[in-house]
């Protein structure tokens, strides 16, 4: 790896292992990285320890071994540069606060003037298209809009990396497509690096610049796949692209093979699949 691309890496996860307090090994060994502004997905079967992986990356859980490096510094506690967006927006949002207050909530930790905070909140609400709902409460909104509130709250905090934990798993298909495109727009608009965890292969391929394929637990990375689909992505055009279909089938086969049996593959040696 050249010095230039090394400096470009905003996040490095090196030989991360996570054993639960009960003794079960959730993550065998995982190494991934993300470049600044990159959209990276981790796709794997249900129960592959994906949430555990994200929580460990953002410092909410301590790794059993290995390390997480953010901008060249090791992560030991949740750093302000990373924000996690949970699947369950109903639990992560605060129902006693209005939409505006939810979005402004994390800013109490930032030493900013009131007008500066206002501007950040307004920008975030504009970015997710929720300006008209600012004074309402999360539970007055549909599921998709609630997840927009959670995303706006994360964006207002101005993180370098957004960690997305199956954020669209609880919304209907149309809303899902809208939210997918929203994350792509936010990446472009704010230059946020996106790290998405999902079990939806099509979603991972559609959104990402690179996809890491996870085995069933104890998890390892079984493949790293580059996604050289043209930008900007478009729900109809991208998903009917021949390359999209090739890539999603490839991921599908990998997950199928490694979900069924991990014995025949060396779990510590991920396949590297070159783009085309």
């Amino acid at each position, binding site marked *: 790896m050249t010095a230039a691309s090394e400096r470009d890496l905003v996040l490095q996860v090196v030989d991360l292992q996570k054993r639960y307090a009960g003794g079960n090994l959730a993550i065998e060994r995982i190494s991934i990285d993300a470049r600044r502004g990159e959209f990276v997905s981790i796709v794997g079967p249900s129960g592959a320890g994906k949430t555990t992986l994200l929580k460990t990356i953002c410092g909410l859980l301590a790794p059993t071994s290995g390390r997480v490096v953010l901008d060249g510094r090791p992560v030991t506690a949740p750093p*302000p540069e990373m924000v996690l967006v949970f699947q369950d927006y109903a639990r992560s949002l605060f129902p*006693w606060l209005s939409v505006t207050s939810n979005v402004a909530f994390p800013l109490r930790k930032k030493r900013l003037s009131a007008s500066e905070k206002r501007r950040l909140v307004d920008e975030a609400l504009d970015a997710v298209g929720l300006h008209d709902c600012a004074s309402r409460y999360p*539970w007055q909104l549909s599921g998709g809009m609630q997840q927009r509130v959670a995303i706006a709250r994360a964006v207002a905090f101005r993180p370098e990396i957004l960690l997305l934990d199956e954020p669209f798993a609880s919304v209907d298909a149309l809303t899902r497509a809208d939210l997918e495109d929203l994350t792509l727009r936010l990446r472009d608009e704010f230059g946020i690096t996106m790290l998405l965890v999902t079990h939806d292969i099509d979603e991972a391929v559609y959104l990402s610049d690179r996809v890491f394929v996870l085995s069933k637990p104890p998890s390892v990375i079984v493949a790293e796949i580059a996604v050289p689909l043209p930008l900007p992505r478009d729900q109809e055009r991208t998903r009917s692209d021949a390359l999209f279909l090739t890539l999603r089938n490839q991921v599908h086969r990998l997950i199928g093979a490694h979900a069924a049996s991990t014995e025949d593959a060396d779990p510590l040696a991920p396949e590297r699949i070159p783009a085309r």
Partner: protein
Amino acid sequence: MRVRRLLGVVTIVVLLAIWEIVARAKANIYVPPPSQIATTFVQQWFSPAFGHDAVPSLWRLLAGYAIAAVLGVAIGIAIGVSVPLYRTLDPLLQVLRALPPTAVIPAGILVLGIGDAMKVAVIAFGAIWPILVNSVDGAHAVARERLDTARNFGLGRGETILFVIVPSALPQVFAGLRIGLALAFIMIVISEMVGGSNGLGYAILSAQRTFSIPEMYAGIVLLAILGFALNALFSLVERRVLAWHVGATEAAR
């Protein structure tokens, strides 16, 4: 809604009418008709007796209840957020909450005498357990995602408790406060019946002992009205503080 409320009032009126008719027909001096109780009620309570008996009862009730509410919520939240405290104290709480609070009144009289201090103390003792136990549960059961969100955004322990755990626990805290209020009401009446020289509990019991039967019923009626009013006041406060919770629960249906 209006029809339903009207129906409830009709029920009360019909029952009172039946009581009136039966009491007049049977002429039992131990069960006077409601009309006579109403007359006595007006004579007795629209008089200095209200200040002599009802005001001290209310004052003791509110003092004891306030102590129970403040201590119950504060200690309950503290236990709920601390795993070691929870493990150490939860079994003890489960034992103490199961104790009928009236049972401690004799001990209260021994230690504190029969004055106001005893009454306020036993009211506080009676009311605190449901408040405490509900606050513990509410603070203990905050969704993992909410706590993770707070940590993710760099909130410290104190801020997390104040801005995330306490609001999350509020619906359960209020459930405990409501049960505590009902228990405080029971405790004031019993503590005044057992020892004292004024108060509604005392007034009801002494009316019974001096065969002032309508006065005894008038005291009971005043207790019912005060209980109803306090509960209504409580609901009013709860609906204001927990407006978001009411809305969220309805939205989830």
